[in-house]
């Protein structure tokens, strides 16, 4: 396994920290006038998703984390686990609730997601940036009101709740940005 020194730190480098794989988000080299240099680093713990800020003395080394991202198709939920498949190899992966995290509310069968593997095991799922989902429940639309002002909550087929404009009707398909959880547009079937 590779070893990284703080000199090689940059966004995207994945290291082991306190036993967990972490992805470097930001790295700043600091050299005080007369003191020892250090690196201020923002990292995301890939297991918990939590963002941490740490300071390391420059020159410290860390074991690289065996973390890869793979595009996989979401197949189905069996009541306990979520099943994904690597389209080239047809290899299937089972993901538990903890690893799935917030992605849960955006998953629609057949959609392609990014599954993060650590030592070959799924530890995270990133849904597509945009998903198209059906509205299962919302107040009846006010036709002609395209002002976009105000808005109302709508429950989607996956259970996600997003704010939609007043004119949107139950049963319609809408496009949502999963990174912000915001409504983008209506989609024609």
């Amino acid at each position, binding site marked *: 396994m590779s070893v990284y020194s703080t*000199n090689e730190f940059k966004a995207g480098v994945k290291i082991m920290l306190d036993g967990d794989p972490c992805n470097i988000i930001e790295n*700043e*080299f*600091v*050299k*005080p*006038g*007369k*003191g*020892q*240099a*250090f690196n*201020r680093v923002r990292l995301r713990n890939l297991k918990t998703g939590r963002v941490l800020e740490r*300071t390391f*003395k*420059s*020159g410290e080394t860390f074991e690289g984390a065996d973390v890869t991202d793979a595009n996989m198709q979401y197949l189905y939920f069996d009541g306990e686990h979520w099943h994904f498949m690597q389209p080239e190899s047809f290899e299937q992966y089972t993901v538990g609730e903890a690893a799935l995290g917030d992605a849960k509310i955006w998953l629609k069968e057949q959609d392609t997601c990014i599954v993060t593997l650590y030592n070959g095991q799924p530890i995270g799922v990133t849904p597509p940036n945009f998903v198209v989902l059906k509205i299962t429940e919302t107040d009846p639309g006010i036709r002609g009101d395209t002002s976009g002002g105000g808005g109302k909550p709508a429950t989607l087929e996956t259970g996600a709740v997003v704010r939609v404009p007043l004119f949107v009707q139950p049963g319609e398909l809408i496009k949502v940005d999963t990174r912000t959880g915001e409504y983008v547009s209506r989609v024609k079937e």
Partner: protein
Amino acid sequence: MSHALKSNIGLLAERAKILHKIRQFFSEQNTLEVETPLLASASITDPYLNPLSLIYDKQTYYLQTSPEYAMKRLLCAGSGSIYQICKAFRNDEKGRIHEPEFTMLEWYMVDFNYEDIINQTDQLLRYVLGCKPAQRFSYQELFIKYAGFDPLEISDDYLLDVTFNSKIEPNLDGVVIVYDYPASQAALSKSRGKVCDRFEVYINGIELANGYHELTDPKEHRIRFENDLKKRKELGYPLLPIDENFMSALEVGLPDCAGVALGVDRLVMAALKKNQISDAVALVVT
């Protein structure tokens, strides 16, 4: 983008104007521009500076980390007040505001005391940048205000540096002079009990310059160098020989003087409102 394309005419003209203003300022103060060698057979003992070295005629030479010792040798030889704009090199220093090769302005004023040199540094910045007079705070008062503790009661310099960076630097707006550093961070400035005659200039939280009322006593120099080497040994860093040419010059006598080292690329960054040092130079190394 290729490096050749990174240069731009606007930047070159702005840099040239800043260099010209610096020279004009010192010329008006009857301070002599000098040049000293970039290569020397000895480097520094500072535990936290890493020199770059090369071999010439089977002997190791070091690229200077600053022109301090060479310029002080000129002062010992009777040069009077001097300044220099030159390149300095530091290994393992690369980042948003660091390049391993950078341009340094260093100057020494004979018969200047601590207050004189702080005032002059402030004047220089106003002259070059057209900025307002610097705000001045002691190192201790900044810690008490922003970190909630007295730094002069703490002996861990690393902790102080990390705290200064995270708690204090983000609060330093515009030009700020921080004075009276802890004696443990005196480097080659005169010390006075718990503090020393050392100050730093910050522009929008970025360190720009470092100045001292200079230590002149050769015995105290040797004590500090030997302490540096002890620290290097503890940390497992390579031991660099003490510069004996510099030591002999100090025996002849360094006149009472005060001096400052200032990062010119960071000064250009501030003048042009750039966010990183690589945007303040025409071409970068890598």
